[in-house]
Every structure is written in C-alpha cells, then in structure tokens.
C-alpha cells in the first residue's frame, strides 16, 4: 500500500469521527462551487440554445452599439478585412431556402465571411457575449448582444430593418440561417462515431512504395524569386555555424544587443495592437496624432496623461483602455516619439 493511500485512509478515519465518512476516492481537495460562481462563469450557449439568457434588442439599437464598438475593426457594414476576417457578405435569399451557401461551392469566390460559414446562430451570440468588443471583452449587456446580433443579421439581409431579436425569435433565425446545412461530420478526425454515426476511414490512401514509384517528380509549385525575401534575411534565421547556413535573402538585421527602436518599445508596450505609425488601425495613426497636435503647448504632458488614463471621444467612439502597465520613462519616450511623427529611424 502506498504511503499516500495510508495517509488517505488516516484522513478518512479522522474525518469519520466528525462527519460522514468519505469514500476512498475522495481526495478531500477543492470545494463546492456556489450557485453565484457557477452563474458567473457558466456563460456558454449551445446550438439548442441551452444557456441562452433572456433579453432582447432591435436592429436600431444594434446599430448604435455597432457604430460605437464594432465598426472601427469590422467596417461600417461588417465587410472589412483590414483587421479581422469579414463578417458580412456572400449570402443570398436562395441560400436561406437551401441552408447551404452556394458561393462556397465556387472556387472563384475567394471570400468566406462569418455568415457564409456559420451553421449555428448560437455560436455568434456566445462569442460576442464572451469575447467582444476586442479591447473590452464581456462588457456588453445581454440586451446589447441581442441588439448587435440583430444588426449584423440585418446587414446580412437575413432579418428586416424592424426586427427585434430575443431569446425566442433567435430560434426562428436558426431556421433560415443561410449555411445551417453546411456542415458535414463525414471524416475520420474525431475519435469516435458520435457525430457521423458510423466508422469513417481516413480519406487519403498513400502506400509506402520504395522503388521506382513513378517516372519522375512533377514540381507543381515553387516559390517565386520575388517571394524569397518576403520573410526577411533567412541567413539571420539560421545558426551561423554547423552543417548548413541560411541563404542571404536581404540586408542583415541588427546585430545582437543593438539598440531597440522606438517601434520595438511601442510593440513591447502593446501600443501596436491598435496603432500604426502611418495608418489608422483601431486607433489613429501616430502621424495623424502628431499632425493634429503640432505646435500645441505642453502636448507631451497632456498626451502622457491621456494615454495613462485612457478614454475616447477625440478620434472616434472606440475608447482606448487605460495604459497603466507602461513604465513612466517608457511612456515619456513614446509620447515624444509619437508627437515627432513616429519616425522609423529612432
């Protein structure tokens, strides 16, 4: 008998005097989850709508949420691929009848939007509620989630302008969702038959031929010379001694221990998740910021305070979260760099 089992037995014996005896397989670790705790985390919504909270929201209400919290990344009409994959587009009235988006069958149709793919509307509700908006997940009320989903469904021309989505009407939406019949479980990549209802064998059948397996190798694709440098200087991405070297495909990077650039500091500080020096991403381009405040008195101090505290209203409705983790000296340097137009040579 292991030492642990003896200990466990001793524990059981000790507890038996005070309360009900515990089974041997009870380690006595952990505690009961309280109903409030389960309620706080038990946020998943299944395809059969188990877990769906009560609530409702209209297309109009959703538009307000969308324009304030979603459009900056996803585009005014949910069409943008600038930051994330497009959400809206590519579905037709006919798809709503068949339940399988016809554009998915066309090799010449490159886009695959969320509403072209998704077969279960619960998926979209669940995800918005748990993970959106991007920089403030879980900040939407349940009504706001219904509203913004109603607006998205309206953008996708699945529901009319005056639609109100709630915990009952969402079931009607499921019945007309364009790609609701678009999923197949006919594959061998789940370890049981629970989805397919039958044993499915792998769909490729190579044989381990050893000699004279074909006349000659047919090269179907190769990397164009123009793409060789697409990933920087490969010589810098291999050890400089040993059996091989990396090919020189571009200028050599900075030697080890070289001074980090301000862009490196901005990246390390998390700024570049929402900003770019020369183009608008989620927040404004640094060059726009520099242009706007050019010549203004004490802008460094004001911008420092603004970044530290966060907030919105200057560049649109998407609020910038308070940046409390950046060290004072780093933030000071970053502010000076931004107001100088974020030059790449610093």
């Amino acid at each position, binding site marked *: 008998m292991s030492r642990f089992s003896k200990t466990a037995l001793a524990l059981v014996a000790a507890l038996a005097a005070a309360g009900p005896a515990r089974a041997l397989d009870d380690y006595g670790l*952990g505690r009961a989850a309280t109903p409030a705790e389960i309620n706080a985390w038990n946020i998943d919504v299944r395809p059969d709508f188990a877990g769906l909270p009560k609530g409702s929201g209209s297309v109009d209400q959703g538009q307000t949420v969308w324009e304030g919290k979603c459009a900056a990344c996803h585009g005014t009409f949910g069409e943008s691929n600038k930051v994330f994959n497009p959400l809206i587009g590519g579905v037709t009235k006919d798809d709503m009848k068949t339940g399988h988006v016809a554009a*998915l069958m066309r090799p010449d149709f490159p886009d695959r939007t969320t509403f072209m793919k998704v077969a279960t509307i619960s998926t*979209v509700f669940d995800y918005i509620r748990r993970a959106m908006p991007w920089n403030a997940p879980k900040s939407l009320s349940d009504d706001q989630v219904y509203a913004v989903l109603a607006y998205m469904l309206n953008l996708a021309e699945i529901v009319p302008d005056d639609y109100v989505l709630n915990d009952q009407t969402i079931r009607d939406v499921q019945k007309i969702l364009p790609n609701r019949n678009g999923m*197949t479980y006919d594959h061998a990549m789940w370890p049981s038959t629970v*989805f397919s209802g039958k044993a499915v064998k792998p769909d*490729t059948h190579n044989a381990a031929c050893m000699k004279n397996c074909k006349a000659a190798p047919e090269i179907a694709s190769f990397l164009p010379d123009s793409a060789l440098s697409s990933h920087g200087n*490969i010589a810098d991405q291999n050890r*400089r001694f040993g*059996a091989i070297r*990396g090919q020189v495909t571009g200028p050599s990077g900075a030697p080890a221990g070289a001074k980090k650039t301000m862009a490196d500091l901005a990246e390390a500080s998390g700024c570049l998740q929402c900003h770019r020096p020369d183009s608008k991403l989620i927040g404004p381009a640094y060059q726009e910021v520099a242009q706007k405040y050019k010549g203004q008195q004490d802008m460094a101090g004001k911008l420092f305070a603004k970044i530290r505290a966060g907030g919105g209203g200057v560049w649109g409705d998407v609020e910038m979260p308070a940046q409390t983790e950046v060290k004072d000296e780093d933030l000071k340097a970053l502010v000076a760099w931004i107001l100088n137009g974020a030059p790449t040579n610093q």
Partner: protein
Amino acid sequence: MQRDVEGIRDCAADRARIRKAPENFLGAEEIAAVRSGRRDFLRGALLAAAAAVGGGRAAAAESASQGEDVILKPQPWSTSLGQPVAATPYGMPSKYENTLLRRQSPGLTQVAAASVSFMPLQGMFGIITPSGLHFERHHQGWQDIDPSRHRFMINGSSPEFIRKPKVYTMDDLMRFPSVSRMHFIECGANTGMEWGNVAVPTVQYTHGMLSCSEYTGVPLRTLLEDCGADFKKAKFVLAEGADGSSMTRTIPIELVLSGEVLVAYGQNGEMLRPENGYPLRLVVPGVQGVSWVKWLRRVKLGDMPWATKDEAVHYIDLMPDGQHRQYTSIQEAKSVITSPSGGQMLLDKGFYNVTGLAWSGRGKIKRVDVSFDGGVNWVEANLQGPVLSKCLTRFNAPWNWDGKPAILQSRAMDETGFVQPTYGQLREARGRRSIYHNNAIQSWKVVESGDVSNVQVL
C-alpha cells in the same frame, strides 16, 4: 554503412567548398575586442576575420604554416577568469544563439494579439521544444495570470452529469496525484498557407506551428470523477479559458476517459510559460492545438457539442462540394525534413545527416522513409528513440550529396498503418481551398549551388 564512411572520406579530401560561408562569422563583441586593441586577442581575431572573409584560402594559408591560430594561440576564454555561478539566475542561451527565434509571417495577420509566431524548427535538435521557443497562437492576446487568483471550475450541463460542481485552486490541483508525459502540439492550421501553392520560404513558416514538451498535470478524468461525473450520460466536454476571448472548444470524451487528457501546470520541468497558458492549460494529445485551451478556467460536461466560434466559424475544413467538415480534431500522420530545408544552403558536397520530425495524432510513428529524388525511390530513415505515442519522433538519414540537383522528401507511417499523403492525394480528397490539416509530404529542392528551396511535388 561502408558507403557512408567513404562519403565522409571523400568530403574530407575535397576541401574546395562550392561556396564560402556567409560573413558575420565574427560576433559584434569579437569585432569590438579587436577594435579595442587587446593585444592578446588581436592577431587571432584578425586572422579569424580574414578567414571569414577569405573562406578556404585563409584557412589553407594557416594550415600551410603550423596550424590554426585558435589552437596555436591562447584564446581569451582559456586565459582569463570566467563568470561566477548564478551570474544569470535564470540561464539564457549563449549570446551567439540569437538567430533561432519565434517569428511572425509578415502579412498573415493584421493584429499581433490575434496571431501566430512560428517555432524555428530549422535549427532545433531532438524532440523537445525549449519553452521559450514554443510556437504561439493567441486569440485575444496572452495574459500572465496571478496563480493565487486562478480558479478551475467543473460543472455540468445538467446536475445529472456532474453531481458536485467544484472549484479548485492551484494549491488543490498541485496536490492531486500527477503524471508527466511528452506530447506534440500542432496547430490545425500548420502548413495552412501551403494548401493552394508554395507560399513561404522556410520550414519555420511551413511547419513551425508545432512544438513538443513534457507536460505535468492531473488527468482530467480524475478531476471529473472527483466531481461525481456520470460518464454514461455525458458524451462531450467543454473547455474554457480565462483570457479575454474565454476560448472554448468541445473535447472528445473518449480521450478524457482514456486518461490521456491532462489539466497541466508543468511544461519541461517548470511551470507553463504565460504564452502557453500559465498557470493551467488543457493537454489533449493527438488533437490540434486549439483544443489545448490555455489559461484553463472551466470544464463542463454535457450531452451535446457546443459549436463554439473556433469549431463553427474557424477550424472547419472547406471541401470541394462547399461543405465544411466540422469537429475535425485529430492530427493525422505527418513529417518534415528540418535540415537541410527551404532557405538553407549546403556549403559543400559530401556527407549530410538529413534530419527531421515525424508525428501522428493516432499513436506512435512506425516508420519514416526519405527520398532524395522527389519520391521516385525511398530509403528507410533511422528513428531516434524514444518513440512515444502522440509525440514528436526524430528521424535521421545519411546522405552523400554529389553536387547534383535533388529533391528531398520524408514520408511518415504511424502504428495504424496510415501513410502520410502526397499533395496530389490530399488535394484529390479535399481540394485546395481548406486552411486546416495539411499533412502532405513536404519537398525541398536542392540545386547545384547548394541552395535549398520550398517546392511542391504532386
């Protein structure tokens, strides 16, 4: 074997390299030492610099005298006092090891918090990935969670499935009996950029969403049983993260019941790295990385799959008929030669140890074959032990390069008898518009100059 020995001898006899080693052989610090005028270091360093620039000629000049200066002249590391213990309380790689790093693929994503960094497998040895080089895939940025405030909850879709919903602290979890096991983790989208055509230059970007670690943790089954799970009624498990995206995936209960799925806190002998889910992640051997939920905060037992965002909008495989395969999870047998590989160059003719990795989500690797002529003829590679289930297996094959064009391939077979497919076979079954589960045979073309590049052979 006799042929290989001859190959080595031929190589030694043929000292004229087909190309000189690239510059930058001297580190910045050595150059600085030369410039600072340290007399003991100066001459050797200058000669070494000449050797780096002049390639074989300088080396020949040295050997024509009495030998190499690095042997004949005392070197600074042999003639000075070294660093004390614990000078670096958490040890770091040598300053010379500054090239093999996690890297992003330019243009793949727009936002670095929902992106990928690739593991540099072109220069790694053995099967274990150093934790600091483990590939990253985050959906809403990574967090560094205070372990004293991390909680793990188990509940059920119905009170029938979990009779006692419970909460565990890290203290609780680390008191349970633990196991340590080595497993690979591969993103379902690994090699995804190559479904249509060759797209990226090196194995870091073609296959770098792959890593392998020793994980330590508690079998999820143990914890579910501790909560009074009814495995007769419940058929599916949901795993949920504590990060902003609260990432969720439906986990196959078969793997939970087999005891393979771990609630893990340890990685390669230390705690998980924050980028890999500190302080707690799910380990689902053989299944694609997205199911190995990081920053794990909750597991729920139920009787239906959840169709979460990452199993209903992403990580679904588009087939030629416009249907998407849903809940594709197992990573089928796959292999890749990591060296020589795309973007590398051979400096010389002669002997090379062709080396690579093979793995299967269905068990152990049984055999790996290597071809040097684009798949016309194959030889069996040597598998390096240990060969473990759902773990990377290192293979090696001797090769005497005659300086002529070659196409290197590897082909894995797992213990079920499944053989890794060619691109032709894979596209015949699944078309070329999918993003996920590309396990086709990888080809590296070698030309006379010694340059190696990424090509696809049907």
